[in-house]
């Protein structure tokens, strides 16, 4: 069958140009926010000296430790983890065709919290200390991280296994996720009930998501996993657009819907598991960011996925910077602020409404 070629209308090119500008503009704002985030804090670093430190100039020597050992890893961790959680939320919402799809509504974070609590219970909590403010240092942080990671991936595999028994429909995946979330929450409560005071404090402390927990090493691990997941998600952008048009339509376009759905679920869960395992639970970024970006530039995954990653990074970086400043000299874990801000933003989006 042959259609006669006709030129693409200018309006469409302009429309695509606007979406591209949004993505590039967001990236510029993110860069500026990063400079601002590294500059402000308990000690204010003048902008010229901050920029000088990038070029390794001697005049910035006295700031080097603050910039490269404290603020830069924290800010970059906020960027990669915000991008990762937001990308996971966008992918889950698309492949599950459910606006409530996110690592938290699907029980993956609850499983991580259970894994962390179980490890604290078995290996015991440690001495009291935390970054910035006095709190608690967990005795074996890598064991807790590993346990949280294993349980969050286990939750994903259980959800996928259930959906293999049934057909991998969005309903089955969402309901299995909700049921598992409830189960792991009950498990965590059970452990907390039998924990002593210090163990209980360690369990609760772990759930406060905080980007200050990561050093360069953790940052690089999160960034590497994010890179793989982001490239995978972007590679599948047309498949996600096809699934948006309905499962039957997607199959008619040659998309192997069940395979794309399960692999996407696995990829989104992987980045969530890595972020949550290293940083604790950071709520609402994965849920709210994709909705914000959908409102601004629509559901086309060619722009939605990069746009969501950048806005997620920007949101978490801005929230973390605010969390460092709002009660200075006390430093709030960023998860408290994201949950405070996320709920009203989400309610606003619901009230304004849009067709999804």
């Amino acid at each position, binding site marked *: 069958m042959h259609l006669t*070629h006709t030129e693409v209308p200018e309006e*469409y090119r302009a*429309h695509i140009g606007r979406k591209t500008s949004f993505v590039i503009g967001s990236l510029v704002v993110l860069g500026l926010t990063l400079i601002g985030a590294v500059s402000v804090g308990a000690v204010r670093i003048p902008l010229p000296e901050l920029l000088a430190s990038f070029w390794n100039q001697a005049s910035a020597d006295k700031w080097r430790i603050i910039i490269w050992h404290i603020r830069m890893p924290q800010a970059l961790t906020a960027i990669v983890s915000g991008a990762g959680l937001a990308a996971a939320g966008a992918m889950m919402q698309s492949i599950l065709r459910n606006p409530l799809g996110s690592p938290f509504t699907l029980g993956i974070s609850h499983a991580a919290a259970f894994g962390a609590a179980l490890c604290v219970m078995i290996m015991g909590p440690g001495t009291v200390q935390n970054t910035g403010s006095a709190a608690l240092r967990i005795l074996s942080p890598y064991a807790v991280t590993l346990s949280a990671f294993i349980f969050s991936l286990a939750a994903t595999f259980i959800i996928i296994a259930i959906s293999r028994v049934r057909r991998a429909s969005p309903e089955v995946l969402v309901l299995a996720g909700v049921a598992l979330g409830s189960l792991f929450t009950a498990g965590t409560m059970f452990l907390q009930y039998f924990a002593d005071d210090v163990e209980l404090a360690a369990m609760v402390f772990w759930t406060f998501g905080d980007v200050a927990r990561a050093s360069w090493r953790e940052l690089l691990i999160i960034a590497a996993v994010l890179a793989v997941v982001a490239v995978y998600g972007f590679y599948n952008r047309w498949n996600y657009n096809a699934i948006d*048009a*309905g499962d039957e*339509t997607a199959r008619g*376009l040659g*998309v192997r819907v069940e395979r794309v759905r399960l692999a996407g679920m696995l990829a989104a869960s992987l980045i969530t598991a890595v972020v949550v395992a290293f940083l604790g639970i950071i709520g609402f970024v994965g849920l709210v960011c994709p909705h914000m970006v959908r409102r601004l530039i629509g559901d*086309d995954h060619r722009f939605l996925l990069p746009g969501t990653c950048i806005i997620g990074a920007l949101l978490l970086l801005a929230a973390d910077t605010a969390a460092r400043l709002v009660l200075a000299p006390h430093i709030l874990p960023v998860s408290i602020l994201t949950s405070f801000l996320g709920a009203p933003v989400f309610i606003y989006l619901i009230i304004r409404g849009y*067709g999804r």
Partner: protein
Amino acid sequence: MMLTVDNVSFRYKSKPVLDSVAFEVAAHQVVSILGPNGVGKTTLLRCMNAILRPETGSIRVRNENILNLDSMEIARKLGYVAQTAEAARTTVFDAVLLGRRPHMTWRASKHDLKLTNAAIERLALGDLSLRYVTELSGGELQKVSIARALVQEPSILLLDEPTSSLDLKNQIEILKTVRQVAATHEVAAIMTMHNLNMALRYSDLFIFLKGGRIYSAGSPETVTPEIIEAVYGVPVDIVRHRDAPMVVPLA
């Protein structure tokens, strides 16, 4: 022949649905698959583009058995218009461009964009091309689905009850469009239908299914009240009104 369906059988678990279905379709033909609810019309359509794998038989498009091909290759030969199209917040242009998915590697080429524009103009959707799909009426949405199937550049267009949720004006418009597409392109259209009068008016060939088998197949002239009564269990008369056959239920 454009399409040869040969000895196709299919069962859902232990329940047989299709039993040794066979027919042929030539280029430019519009074919209606008819029969009561649950007889296997949609299942047959899904078997034809291998969304469901038939238990036996073959589906040959231009003499090539599509059951041996991968899903993208099949989608380049058969365009499928599902009964219900979901509306995402993408523009009409992007929704139609999605039909190039089976031909794409990494990104949409200029060729893909030009074909998409051609299909949009072919379906008279030009004024809507930058509107979000969520803002369209049912008829417009159905046209978008057909345009999307057209840019797949298929040999066969499969449409699952394309008029089921449309008002009379839109039903006529969609069926006329299907006829025009089949007449002017090297393509055959096969659709499942419930509305017998619309099917009689806009189809070249009829396939009546009963009990998972073809009960009768032929041109509009071969359709008799006895066939319709045997398939649907309702006595009917076929009268001619301005040269068009019309089915009138007698029950």
